């Protein structure tokens, strides 16, 4: 059992969870989803969170992203402590500091691709940075699809719109919940490529929950969760190394 170490890494932290616990129910029926988890997500780093079903990987992401409440501990996005925020402030924080990519593409069917991309800024009532917007659109290769509605786009294209939406408002951190879960492998690879490029070239911070070792291999670091605790982490992962690590869980799961 190791706690993610930050020693030797001088880069600033984009999000940090300290002793984060999430407990459902009470007494007999109590379920501990997160058990005093401490983890840092550094700026300009691509982190994947992995773990078997029920390990708490999605819960961890939801708590850090301000989508869900937690029982104890603390979560910081930049300098902001989430535990003390009201719903309204949390909403504002998500709008201004965080980008999201979900498994189901989660675009609004009534809006065009471009309108979907600029939606967070529309909500905030801000004008998008034209130059930045163009470069994001160019990166995900949607320039000729901007007037289309989601129903006229393929699954891969839809998810690229979602990636562009997350990037367009230049959030401090982007969270992805199984962003490739509904895509075929080629489209999935494209989306992951964009995410990695955004980290490498644009200095974006990305945290992604996945159960796919191939997807995890795109990340700079993989954090493994089991039974609500962080059990390991791997830097510079490959699909094979991640798969090997995952197999240990399976073995452990069978023996225990």
């Amino acid at each position, binding site marked *: 059992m190791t706690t993610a170490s930050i020693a030797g890494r001088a880069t600033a932290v984009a999000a940090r969870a300290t002793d984060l616990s999430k407990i459902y129910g009470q007494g007999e029926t109590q379920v501990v989803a997160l058990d005093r988890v401490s983890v840092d997500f550094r700026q300009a780093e691509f982190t994947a969170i992995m773990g078997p079903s029920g390990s708490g990987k999605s819960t961890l992401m939801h708590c850090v992203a301000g989508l869900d409440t937690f029982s104890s501990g603390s979560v910081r996005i930049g300098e902001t402590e989430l535990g003390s925020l009201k*719903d309204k402030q949390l*909403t504002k924080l998500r709008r*201004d500091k965080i980008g999201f990519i*979900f498994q*189901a593409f*989660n675009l609004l069917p009534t809006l065009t691709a471009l309108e979907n991309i600029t*939606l967070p800024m529309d*909500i905030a009532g801000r004008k998008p940075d034209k130059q930045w917007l163009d470069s994001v659109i160019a990166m995900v290769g949607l320039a000729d699809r901007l007037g289309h509605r989601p129903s006229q786009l393929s699954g891969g294209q839809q998810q690229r719109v979602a990636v562009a939406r997350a990037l367009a408002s230049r959030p401090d951190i982007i969270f992805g919940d199984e962003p490739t879960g509904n895509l075929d492998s080629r489209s999935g690879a494209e989306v992951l490529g964009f995410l990695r490029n955004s980290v490498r070239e644009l200095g974006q911070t990305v945290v992604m929950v996945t159960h796919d070792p191939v997807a995890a291999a795109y990340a700079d670091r993989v954090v493994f969760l089991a039974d609500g605790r962080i059990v390991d982490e791997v830097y510079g992962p490959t699909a094979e190394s991640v798969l090997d690590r995952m197999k240990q869980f399976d073995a452990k799961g069978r023996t225990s």
Partner: protein
Amino acid sequence: MFRTALRNVFAHKARLLMTVLAVMLGVAFVSGTLVFTNTISEAYQKSSAKGFDQVDVAVEPETQEDKGDTVGKTAELTQSLLDESARVPGAASAIGVVNGFTAIADKDGKLIGGGFQSQGGNYWGTKDARYPLVSGQVPSGAGEVLIDSKTAKRAGYEVGDTVRLSVDGPVLDPKITGIFTTDDGNVAAGGSLALFDTATAQRLFGKTGTYDQIDVRAKAGVSQAALKAELDKALPKDTVETTTGQELADSQAEMISSSMSGLKQGLLVFAGIALFVGTFIIANTFTMLVAQRTKELALLRAVGASRRQVTRSVLIEAFVVGVVAAVTGLAAGIGIGAGLRSLMGSLGATVPDGPLIITPGTVGAALAVGVLVTMLAAWLPGRRAAKIPPVAAMSSLYAAATTKSLVLRNTLGALFSGAGIAVVLAATTMSGSDGQAPMGLGAVLLIIGVFILTPLLSRPLIAAAAPVLRVFGVSGKLARQNSVRNPRRTAATASALMIGLTLITGMTVMAGSLQKSIDKMAASAIKADYVVSMANGNELSPDVEKKLGRIDDVTATSPLRNAPSRIDGETEYLTGVTGSTIGELTDLKIDSGAFKVGGTQVVVDDKTATSHGWKAGSGFTVSYEDGKKQKLTVTGVYEGNEMIQGIILDNATLSPHQSDPADMQVMVKTSDGTSGATKDQLEKALGSNPAIKVQDKKDLSDEIAQMFTLMLNMLYGLLAMAVLVAVLGVINTLAMSVFERSQEIGMLRAIGLDRRGIKRMVRLESLVICLFGGVLGIGLGVFFGWAAGELLGSSLATYELVLPWARMAVFLLLAATVGVLAALWPARRAGRLNMLAAIKSE
């Protein structure tokens, strides 16, 4: 399967409540209408059904037709005819009936029953079987009167009290000598009845020595028909008409039901509309139920339920909902029926008393409507439910069948609307009653057409609201787009409001325009300060004018007297006035010639002049009632209106030819103009008579306005119903939309739209849908109001279209309010949606 269906009904209470409410309102509307009309018509029937059990054969005077130069006269039923009737072998007895108007004042001097069926009659002999005495004794002479027990009780009169009465103007103060009961339905319905001895009644009602009717009773064993045959033989055919009691009762029943049918149809149209709209809501609700249960139903299919079983389970659910809703709706409807009557009563309408009538037909209709309509409305979604493939249970991405093209629908709608508009426009060019039927047909066609077209219309109309919605930022933009996402649903929702507002706006436009034209008429034609008339529209005794003329402040008076005459073989009514003063009292526009009335000089209105080919200076010969002829000269032609029209001549010329001169009204001009004090003075001079109305111009137009106000108030009451149905419909639609879009809402929350923004989005969508319905409804209403006005205008010279902008703004505001109110709950639900659960629920 039945158990599954039942479980479903109870599994979702809010949903159940909404469905039941929707059906219930429809049923309540229908049954309320039926209860109301049945109750009213029953009461009317009773009110006119005078104890025919006392009459075996009624002898009534024959009225001759107008022929050649003679005005047809009504024969008189004399004492000798009565004696002859009593002498026929089959007759047991015969009594003479005298009727007339008799107003009774209560102890404060106010008219009892508001002029509604204030009747007087005669007490026959020493013991009249029609009117059993409760207390006191038979009256004798003008100083004694009997009153019915209901009126006595209402006003607190007892035997020995003095009561103020009026028959044709002058006030009487007789003593009550007795109180009687009667099965006279008019009394049961709230009217009053005063009885004098026969000679007094004949004198007071101006029928000295004659009767209005002779009621003959048959001897035991003699049939009504046999007695009638005997009487026909015995009595002169050209003066009397005999009718059996049975025939009288039958013809009366027929007359009543036909006079009630208009009101009944009007109300049923409303009920039909409510039902129509209700059907859409029910269908919508079940569509939502099925949508929410796609997975559940697919699972049923996957584990082996057949399509038919799935359909049946939806139908059973509909049946249960329908039965519950129909029963509660019936109860509510009975309440509405009772409430509507007391509402009408409190608004000043004269509604006859009587028990609340709930016929088996009403109950049957309510149940059938509730259950059948619900099942019918659920049938389509039920079939759709059965078509859900079993695989939908597994797949997270099963989407409902794509919406069919609207092309067919739009074509059909355009055809209906086009035909409707064409027919309505064609109808406006027709005159009066000819245009009514096509107008109604056109209106129905157009409403159906627009109803079909609403999905098409929703896009451009809602797009027009975009600039306003932009103020609300993203919420506004999303609301607009959401509202046109499912045009059919939006249309069905908006239609509920549309139809209600169409009717109400149309009526308001018409009533407002009519009101204006009547005001104009009253203002333009009359210079008199006051018009004096009888409360029930009867004629005034000439004494009234004499009394008014004696008042110091009164500068001019003129009665308006009506008399039939024959001119060129046609019946024309002559209007008799005081020639010397009429110029001061009226302000008629002269088309040609001069306004000179006196001697043989008369003026005629433009229509009469045209039909006879008269001009100023023409002469014609008139035959009066008494058969005398006279040559008259037209001095001028004036523009007639609804109050004053026809041939105007001097009373000095007319009255000698009348057997019983009486005034329709008396116009009065005073030196002080109109003021409360003057009015009091006039009323006092007439003995503070409860039966006489002294009205200034404003009173006159108010009186007519009251009629419209009453009608409008009733309609507004019904509108409240339509609005309620509409609110439910909007709630339904929004709840459905929020449910379907929960994933989107979750995503919007995640990427930073706060609760307020979400709520605002739902509210704005609701507002947009309701305003869409409101604008359509008001637009259609104005069109219909205009068209109906064109039709009316052809017979009403001063008619002018008045658009009630303030009212229309109120209606639009009402539509907006409906939108905001209906969105309260769905918006709250959307705001509270757990975003994580929403995002995951794929």
